[in-house]
């Protein structure tokens, strides 16, 4: 399996998903070699063997690779493709990477590459080096199926497939359209498309994403399978937090970027605040749209009831959920979206956009079109005012999320492996 990150060193949902999935697969007697660009040594290796790409000797694995290498060699990085990173962090990464980067020509004699294992300015170079390393791993390790998570690892997956001849599964957790809307980065799109085309099977995290893969990437329907994500709350601990304010709290928690639809949240808040004064809104997270949101809130004159927390981590996230009365995820395009499940786990009723994969698996949630601000405002108000509704969600929601187990996902994926190997 090729991934870009593995707990505890994660920046987004991808690492968590890989962890949950591999753990469940290990329980079902599937042996997983998990390749990450850089290992920190403290990864949970109880169910997978972690291999760090930087520890691998790169050999000129095969001549077959030459053509592949030609294709990806000249890709250049541009800044707007960086996923899961907010601006402040982005700068840090760039600074850190400048020290680490070793300029290399690619396929050459025996040497090791150094990887940052982060998302940053030299991402595409890292992706390419990672692919070359993958070819070496594929030549030395013994395995049956190659499984690549998201576009960063598709070139690696392809390289491994070319070297080993083993079937390739690419797992789409997000597409370029989710990250960038219609203004896609063509390089990334091309890598994604090639990965899907080269794959023997494409796994989508939702029907919503499956549909994008079929219509936007032109992948044949019968090759694309939906396997919904799940959540693992086995280590979840509930804490009680005292509220500082008497009003009800409506929360947005996530990256403040175009994809997450923060602007719709602000507009809906404005509508609700006109009629309901016993409520406060919180936008937790940061991102490239944060400043614009702050300006908008100020302009609407609701800043005394609308609060920004900045980026939240660890227990602060839990705490935010505990304080919330309604959680809103108005994503414009969300392949899956795990955060509403975390909210429900904390007994918070959720409103999610219909343009999210998670809306396919949830019954006890209000679903609205992200652009329908009136419906969003109405739903928020409904949950705040009609206690029968919020109690209904609290009563059934936790049970519902506890039933979304990785075991089901693992079973489906193992099924796909069996089809490909038999």
């Amino acid at each position, binding site marked *: 399996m090729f991934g870009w990150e593995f707990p505890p060193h994660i920046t987004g949902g991808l690492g968590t998903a890989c962890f949950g999935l591999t753990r469940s697969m290990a329980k079902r007697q599937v042996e997983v070699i998990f390749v990450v660009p850089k290992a920190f040594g403290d990864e949970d290796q109880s169910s997978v063997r972690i291999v760090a790409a930087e520890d691998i000797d790169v050999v000129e694995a095969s001549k077959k690779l030459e053509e592949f290498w030609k294709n990806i060699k000249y890709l250049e990085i541009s800044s707007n493709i960086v996923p899961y990173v907010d601006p402040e962090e982005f700068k840090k990464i760039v600074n850190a990477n400048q020290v680490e980067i070793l300029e290399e020509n690619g396929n050459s004699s025996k040497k090791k590459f150094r990887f940052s294992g982060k998302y940053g300015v030299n991402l595409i170079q890292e992706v390419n080096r990672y692919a070359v390393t993958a070819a070496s791993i594929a030549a030395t390790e013994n395995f049956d199926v190659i499984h690549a998570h998201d576009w960063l690892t598709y070139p690696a997956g392809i390289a491994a497939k070319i070297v080993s001849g083993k079937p390739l599964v690419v797992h789409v957790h997000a597409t370029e359209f989710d990250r960038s809307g219609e203004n896609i980065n063509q390089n990334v799109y091309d890598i994604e498309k090639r990965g899907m085309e080269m794959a023997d099977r494409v796994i989508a995290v939702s029907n919503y994403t499956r549909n994008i893969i079929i219509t936007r990437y032109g992948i044949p329907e019968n090759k694309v399978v939906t396997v919904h994500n799940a959540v693992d709350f086995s280590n979840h601990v509930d804490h009680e937090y005292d509220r500082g304010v008497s009003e009800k709290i409506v929360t947005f928690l996530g990256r403040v970027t175009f994809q997450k639809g923060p602007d719709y949240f602000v507009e809906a808040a404005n*509508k609700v605040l*006109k*009629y*309901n004064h016993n409520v406060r809104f919180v936008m937790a997270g940061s991102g490239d749209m944060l400043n614009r949101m702050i300006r908008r809130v100020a302009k609407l004159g609701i800043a*005394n009831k609308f609060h920004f927390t900045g980026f939240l981590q660890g227990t602060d996230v839990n705490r935010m959920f505990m304080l919330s009365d309604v959680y809103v995820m108005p994503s414009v395009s969300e392949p899956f979206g795990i955060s509403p499940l975390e909210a429900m786990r904390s007994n918070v009723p959720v409103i999610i956009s219909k343009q999210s994969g998670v809306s396919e698996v949830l*019954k006890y949630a*209000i*679903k609205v079109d992200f652009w329908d601000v*009136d*419906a969003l*405002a*109405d*739903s928020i*108000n*409904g949950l705040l*005012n*009609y*206690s*029968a*509704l919020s*109690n*209904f969600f609290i*009563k059934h929601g936790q049970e519902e999320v506890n039933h979304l187990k990785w075991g089901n996902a693992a079973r489906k994926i193992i099924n796909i492996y069996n089809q490909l190997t038999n």
Partner: protein
Amino acid sequence: MKTICFYFQVHQPFRLRRYRFFDIGKHHDYFDEFANRSIMRKVAEKCYLPTNKLMLDLINEYGSRFKISYSISGTALDQFELYAPDVLDSFRKLADTGCVEFLAETYSHSLSSLKNKDEFSRQVRAQQKKIKELFNYESKTFRNTELIYSDEIGAMVADLGFKTMLTEGAKHILGWKSSNFVYANDINPKLKLLLKNFQLSDDIAFRFSNRDWSEWPLTTEKFVWWLDNIDPNEEIVNLFMDYETFGEHQWAETGIFDFMRALPDRIFSNSNFEFLTPAEAAKKHQPVALLHVPSPISWADEERDLTAWLGNELQDSAFNQLYSLADKVEQIDDPDIKRDWLYLQTSDHFYYLCTKWFSDGDVHKYFNPYDSPYEAFINYMNVLSDFSLRVKNKLMEQSLFNEKEESETTEIKKLIGAYQKKIEELQQQITSTATKTASTSPKNAVKNEAPKKDIAVPKKKETTISKKKKDTVKKVEEPKKAKASTTKAKKPVTQTATKKSPKGNTKKSK
């Protein structure tokens, strides 16, 4: 001769428009005029008009041998008047044949029988009145919303003077008993019960076009053969179904109209059955036993219970809040509020809140204009919030008005009393002086009468003037009252203003 008894349910709800919380207190038009009109027109063209024509043809062909019955909700009748007078005319023609029985039900196809006896009775009377107005027909048989029935509801219906009631032949109630007999209410045995034969009814209503059904296609031969093969002792087969079965649930293309057109002839020629209306059937057959139904049943879903309308938290909350207004609405005399009150009680609104998607989800979705029960709940509660505000305001208005009227009349009465006393006193004075003068010269007595009148007239004037004065005094008082109330209303505003000001200060200090 055995009896076959057809009853068709005709109902359309007034569907709500998308009513947002920011409409509360501002807009009071709750209903989706466009949807209600277009759905009524669609169903009229596909079902009501062609089916009514078919039934009329059959009645004309077989004379009084072919009989049917309808239960038409008040909301459906209102919609006919608004959007489909042609349908109303076709029902009138059917009524004129004398072969059709119209059943009584609650005006708004409501669940009031489960909650409020007074409201229930009022609605039944209102629907009966409407039927009488439109079809000049006195309904004698009762059918409750969705065939909902329990011992208590039956007793309530008997109290209203009905002799016969229709309900579901629910398996869990009947046990080994058959629905093909007449039964009686457990509390008041005078009320006869006709039970739906759900097997044969649903063969037509639900399974007719289902190609996965082993008996598909359903022919009149097959159906009448089934009728002939019921237990020889059994007396009656009740075929109860939605009228929209014809042409709407089962499209014309399925052959449902042809089936119905051919059925009477097949029954007359190949079976020992006659068509009777519910009232006739109940008269002909004696009840074989009391039916014990402690908790309510209905004709819906696999469970034949109330869970399609009530039971989950959303439904119960909306239902209880709605009926918490019943007493208040009763005191109000406002046609708009009365109408909305009726239309908001329609059971369909609670059906949309149902969350049991799995077993009967398909049927539910078919009848549901909302994407989810949550959406339906928020919408309904928004409307209900506005409605209860209106009820509250209207009550306040009325009580103020009543108080005013009462105080005015008592004051006037006081005044009148006071002046009457004065008049009497004066009259006594006059008579006493008159007797004095009369004793001196009888001629003057005639003269004296005139001045008496003269005196009386100005006094009357005086009273009226003083009344006017009093009125103006009152008018002066009224604005005072009004002022007092406005100052009351203003008070919270000033409070919030003072609340706000410290915030402003803190901002400044920042």
